[in-house]
């Protein structure tokens, strides 16, 4: 499998690597993982008074596609409103980076990370969440609420 030029570019020159102050009321943190490959992705946003994302940082430990997906997403969300950022779909990321089918889950992870970061921000601000932080679908949702999956998933 070969990576596309865009993936390599983001991998070699990742944008917005780093951390924002997690305790800052304007900062939302999304921390997600891909259990199938053992990747971990942290994505943070800083939202200003107008509801515009003025800064975004990420830290990803995983394959090139996971790093590129999170790097791209931080570029995309900067300057967007929270609502606009929520419109970012994993398919957009996959398409932009030309991800092969086996790496689609990396783009899913990036979408889940931004959603989790926004949910965290909204929670801090006492705003109603637009999406649930836990984007896991189907019966797993029920199991999470029952506490079954709390231990690890």
């Amino acid at each position, binding site marked *: 499998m070969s990576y596309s030029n865009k993936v390599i570019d983001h991998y070699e020159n990742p944008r917005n690597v780093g951390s924002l102050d997690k305790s800052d009321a304007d900062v939302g943190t999304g921390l*997600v*993982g891909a259990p199938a490959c053992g990747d971990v992705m942290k994505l943070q946003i800083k939202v200003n008074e107008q509801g515009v994302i003025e800064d975004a940082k990420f830290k990803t430990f995983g394959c090139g596609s996971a790093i590129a997906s999170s790097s791209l997403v931080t570029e995309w969300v900067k300057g967007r409103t929270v609502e606009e950022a929520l419109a970012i779909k994993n398919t957009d990321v996959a398409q932009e980076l030309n991800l092969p089918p086996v790496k689609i889950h990396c783009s899913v992870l990036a979408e889940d990370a931004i959603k989790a970061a926004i949910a965290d921000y909204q929670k801090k601000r006492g705003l109603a969440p637009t999406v649930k932080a836990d984007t896991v679908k189907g019966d*797993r949702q029920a199991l999470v609420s029952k506490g079954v*999956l709390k*231990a*690890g998933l």
Partner: protein
Amino acid sequence: MNCWSCQKAVGPEDVFCPACRVLQPEPPGADLFSALGLSRGYDIDPDDLEARFRARSRQLHPDRFARASARERRLSLERTTRLNDAYRTLKDVRRRAAYLLKLLGKDPVVEARTLHDPEFLEEQLELREMLALAREKSDQRTLALIATGARDRLAAIDEEVARLFAEADPGEEALLSIVSALARSRYFENVVAEADPTAPPAQPR
């Protein structure tokens, strides 16, 4: 079932027809456990697995069928491929667990999409940061410590999985705990692979 060659009765465990000694196909719906003559279950003695694999490999080896009919030659190839696949999957405890979960309707890949467990992920993030720093500085002592720590965690996870599978009839909760344990093990496998360059790379499951 009947022998494809002489039409006499053949049992599901029979590799060869008891009457005419001709190689038989695997019975329909056979899993990788039965490819090694094992019953479905997590608890397997590694020595027994090894012995079964060797014995079956000899029985099914394509060289033995060089002069046999076209159908037997094909069966020997098919069954040998399947046998190798079974051995590879069942030899590794975590791959075995993942395969067993899949058979039990809890495919770990399907079940475990995105992980939302801040506590565990926070720990992983810290561990990976420590690891990256130690690699940068070629700090062999720290790398060795990290690798040992991750191996200990893996051993604990393997024990937990064995215990959960040993339950008389692992229910939904036990199976999902195993899915969760396997997901965590993937993280520690990656840590070991990064901290110890001599370790074999993490296997796909």
